[in-house]
């Protein structure tokens, strides 16, 4: 039986006890998936998994307070579930986790760059084991999956869900986390070059807050300081400086909490490479606190604890 059939059977056997199970279905065209809220067995017919099912569905979990629901997660998404549990933002007994052993998901941005015409004109997509056969604007293209995988998949150390009630698929041999070339290249730039880069990039930001709302760990939701009117912390002006200010608030609120699922960057309609900020911050957190968010149950983010003296910060020795 295929992974998809296994998953469908597993969901079927739990559906009676759950409000719904969140998975994916085909979206507005053959290249895009969209979240699917499975309430009946008939809905299961639409369920898909695979490299096009990109969304981190854990984002929806805190919104279902008090209701028992199921969620389908890839390895990266399962880290968000763990982090939400660690911060008491969801209850373990209210979530049934259907974990996948994931072979990676695509980056729509990389697909766009690799296709002969804009994916807006996509006609059909055939997902193979190693490639995607895409017909777009009357032209066919075969893209190797390994060439269009999301950056996070290139360095993934947790392809299989690390927390699950049901684990679907064959487990992968664990690989050590690698470093990402584009991150290393960026960090090698001088401060002036980095500043110039962000000034140019942030001039594109439209402050739509898709990055914030797609983030499973951005749980202030309606009470975010970026949109508070009283006090008005951040100007509504969309100058590059104000836009960057919002992103810095965003990144610091995620210190020790960001699981690098990449949803912020994926959700951005103007392709701002927000993960450059996230990965940099996570590196600092790892160096100082030896912590990687979402990798172990019962760990608390450093900014949610208080110690008079941090073990690895020599405050009095300066």
């Amino acid at each position, binding site marked *: 039986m295929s992974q998809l059939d296994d998953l469908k059977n597993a969901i079927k056997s739990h559906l009676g006890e759950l409000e719904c199970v969140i998975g994916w279905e085909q*979206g*507005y*065209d053959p290249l*895009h*998936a*969209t*979240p699917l*809220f499975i309430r009946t067995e008939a809905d299961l017919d639409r369920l898909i998994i695979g490299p096009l099912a990109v*969304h981190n569905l854990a*984002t*929806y979990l805190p919104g279902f307070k008090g209701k028992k629901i199921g969620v389908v997660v890839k390895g990266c998404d399962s880290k968000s579930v763990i982090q939400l549990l660690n911060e008491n933002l969801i209850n373990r007994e209210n979530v049934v986790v259907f974990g996948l052993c994931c072979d990676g998901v695509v980056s729509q*941005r990389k697909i*766009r*760059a690799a296709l002969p015409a*804009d994916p*807006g*004109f*996509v006609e059909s997509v055939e997902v193979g084991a190693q490639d995607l056969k895409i017909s777009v*604007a009357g032209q066919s293209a075969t893209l190797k999956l390994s060439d269009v995988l999301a950056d996070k998949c290139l360095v993934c150390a947790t392809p299989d869900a690390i927390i699950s009630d049901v684990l679907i698929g064959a487990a992968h041999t664990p690989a050590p986390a690698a470093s990402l070339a584009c991150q290393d290249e960026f960090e090698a730039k001088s401060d002036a070059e980095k500043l110039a880069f962000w000034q*140019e*990039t942030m*001039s*594109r930001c*439209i*402050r*739509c*807050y*898709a990055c*914030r*709302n*797609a983030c499973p760990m951005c749980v202030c*939701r*309606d*009470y975010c300081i970026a*949109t*508070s*009117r009283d006090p*008005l912390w951040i*100007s*509504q*002006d*969309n*100058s590059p400086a104000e836009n960057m200010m919002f992103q810095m608030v965003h990144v610091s609120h995620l210190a020790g909490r960001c699981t690098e699922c990449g*949803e912020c960057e*994926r*959700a951005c*309609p*103007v*392709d701002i*490479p927000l993960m450059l900020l996230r990965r940099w911050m996570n590196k600092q957190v790892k160096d100082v606190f030896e912590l990687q968010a979402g990798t172990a149950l019962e760990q608390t983010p450093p900014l949610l604890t208080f110690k008079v003296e941090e073990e690895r910060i020599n405050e009095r020795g300066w």
Partner: protein
Amino acid sequence: MERFITKENLIRLAEELTATCRVLAPVASCGTVTFRRFLPGMVLDMHSRMAAVSPKAATFPQTETLLTVKREIPEKKPEITETLPEGKNVVIGCRPCGARGKLIFNPVYETDKTKDPYYITRRDNTVFISLACDRPETTCFCHSVGSGPADAEGSDVLLTLVGEGYVARSVTPAGEEVMKSSLFADAGDKGKEADAKNVRARELMGEAHDYASAPAQLLARFDDMDFWQAQSAKCISCGACTYMCPTCYCFNITDDDLGLESRRIRSWDNCMSHTFTLEGSGHNPRPTKAHRLKNRVGHKFSYYPDLHKGVIACCGCGRCIKQCPAGVDIRQIVKAAQEYSE
């Protein structure tokens, strides 16, 4: 007036116009195409893809200063200066839907009772040189909302790609003025080719969806929160759809206070946001994302048409579908309301 302009000359025209106007054009940066201020030397990207963000900012900027306040001494009466927009704008290379979108603003910002001087000044000083579409994207539905891939309404000049250049047709006197430039040549019999392309593009769009029953059917579902909760389940309540929409015109006004100087700014508001209708009392008539999405869909396909002679407040550009992080499809929501049976 019908003329022809080569691709090279269109770039030259854009460069020439920068001397007297603020030119907005689709420019690619890090793989994304957005409308931005075009300056000589920049590379126009008119054909690779529809700009992620619409050219709305030409007539309705994301942020604009309405007035400035200066106080020399706190006790003294402050000096207030109104800052009406100045200068001329030209938008080059938008799709017809992007140009037409702004027409939705007119019955709102210019009525017998109210006239918004900021919008009206910008609108009257902005020329739209649009490019007819060759073929629809999977998210396009302009033909279902009373438009089409070569719709000239809202444009001043409509270009159609023919061979290595564009057949240019003036729509308004302002457009005719632009086309007086010597960069335009005689169109010869290229007009026929342009017509054929426009007809073909319309054919490729297939049958239009009929939204005639949408206003009444959406209103019939107004109190049905189960319907709206189901429709909005995957919405993450960000504002990407409204910000990229050429027809969304809601705004917010805030004061940027800088000590003795301050700026009153108007910025795009967004009905997906909690603060959109948050009242001073703390009460919010639209407390959940289901209420907010109902407002967005209802406004475009029901309340606005009811108020304004049946005109749907959507230009069918599909940006809200294409760029939605969760893949919410406004076409499906309206259709679900239209097909709903108890």
